[in-house]
């Protein structure tokens, strides 16, 4: 199967800054992907390259088998909702009418339902909307477009928690009936962790993790208890993070848990808990580039 998106050894340099550095990954059709990383890691630049808003300095990008730059057939199947999207100075209703003209798979019913869900005032001009409402408008456009490749770049700025939950809920519901390739760039990783099927983590422009979300989740665990037994349990295992509070200690250990480890933890009366995707990404992106690479190596 041809992937929806293929990024092959792509770099994007601006004068002195390398925003994307030799990135390579592929996104399958019909799945929800997370493009994760810290601020300034290169997520937005990658999305701009994929949607043909920019060209790579080197390497190649393919969307549905074609270089997306000025490629009409590839681009008419994409919809990119940006964090700070510029809108024409029109009412909400007219902005939606505009998007409808440009998105071949647009669904009016879904748009109307989402407008009601997010309580968007159709008659109000976009520049008079609050930040959260403007984000909601972007979400309505992104979902109602039903574009075969839909990219959301931090789409929830100013959106409160219930509205974000609504977004995830509606995304999943519509995705179930109309599977498409979705890319969600976010740093609220815990919120979207359950949505993601595959994750691409970027750090300083480089791809440090490109794996199934489930695979990533099992790659570390935390052990908590009295300092002595924790040290005994950890032994020669690789510790990514450690915290001592009084006589107690908490260590994040890289590796997968097996039955013997569970037994040992039981005997030492230690608590074992999985590490959240958010923490795993944090561990993968806070160390030196070498740490990040060894973390990725641990996945394989």
């Amino acid at each position, binding site marked *: 199967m041809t992937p929806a998106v293929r990024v092959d050894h792509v770099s994007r340099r601006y004068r002195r800054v390398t925003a994307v550095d030799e990135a390579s990954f592929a996104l399958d059709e019909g799945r929800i992907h997370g493009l994760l990383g810290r601020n300034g890691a290169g997520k937005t630049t990658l999305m*701009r390259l994929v*949607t*043909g*808003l*920019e*060209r790579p300095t080197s390497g190649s990008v393919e969307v549905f088998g074609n270089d997306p730059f*000025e*490629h*009409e057939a590839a*681009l*008419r*199947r*994409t*919809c*990119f*909702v*940006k964090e700070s*999207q*510029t*809108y*024409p*100075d*029109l*009412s909400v209703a*007219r*902005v939606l*009418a*505009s*998007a409808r*003209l*440009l*998105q071949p798979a647009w669904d009016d019913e879904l748009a109307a339902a989402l407008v009601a869900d997010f309580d968007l005032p159709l008659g109000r001009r976009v520049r008079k909307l609050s930040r959260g409402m403007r984000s909601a408008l972007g979400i309505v*456009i992104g979902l109602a*477009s039903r*574009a075969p490749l839909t990219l959301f770049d931090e789409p929830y700025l100013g959106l409160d928690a219930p509205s974000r939950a609504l977004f995830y809920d509606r995304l999943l519901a519509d995705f179930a009936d109309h599977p498409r390739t979705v890319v969600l760039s976010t740093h609220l990783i815990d919120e979207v962790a359950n949505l993601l099927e595959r994750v691409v983590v970027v750090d300083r422009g480089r791809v440090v993790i490109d794996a199934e979300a489930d695979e990533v989740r099992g790659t570390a665990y935390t052990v908590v208890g009295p300092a002595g037994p924790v040290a005994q349990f950890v032994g020669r295992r690789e510790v990514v993070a450690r915290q001592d509070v009084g006589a107690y200690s908490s260590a994040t250990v890289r590796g997968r848990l097996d039955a013997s480890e569970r037994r040992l933890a039981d005997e030492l009366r230690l608590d074992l808990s999985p590490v959240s995707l958010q923490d795993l990404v944090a561990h993968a992106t806070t160390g030196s580039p070498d740490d990040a690479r060894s973390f990725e190596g641990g996945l394989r």
Partner: protein
Amino acid sequence: MSRAVAVARVHAVDVSHAMWPWAILAISFVVNVTLWVALRNVDGFQKTTGGLLSPYVTAVFVAAVSISRQLPFMLGLGVTRAAFMGGSLIYAGGCAAVTGVVLTLLNVVEGATDGFGQGGKFFRVPWLTDVPTYQLLAVYAVPMLLALALGAFTAGLYARFGATGMLVSSAVGMAAVTAAVAFVTAAQAWGTVGGWVVSLTPLTLTGWLLVAAVGTLGVTYRVLRRVAV
């Protein structure tokens, strides 16, 4: 549906911005007619005006603002720069055509009513509109196309090169004009230039404005082709 046509339709989703030049024109017209009436007994009062220029100048700004907002919006929704340019041109062509028709009608009305009963000239411009009625369409429409092209060019320049680019290009433009003036002076060619100006007819002037509009659109496309929004 072609993408360019879709782009043109998006521009036409709300035509209220296209009303600005007409609103300005209406205000200018009312002010002028009021003056004609108020000063009708003053000897030597010239009942002509440059008010007709106002919608064209307004159109430059309206086009610049509209293009700079629509460009990032439409590119995010999967429109190519080429389709954006093509669709915007279709829409601008439509606006220019409407301008031509409406102003020609108003010109005819003004002529038939002897300047709205005041003997004034608002839609009739000495020399420029002293042409057969069918030529009036082009005389009114082409400058509008040029105005919209200049607006799009300004927006494109800003989108591609930012404020610095605008500053540099206006400096380059000024330098080019200065160089041209210096060149003509050095070549002692002002007589030739003057002769050329005198030889212009309203229709050939319109032709040159059309060349300028097409040239501006061509340069705008070159600027937009690689723009990152």
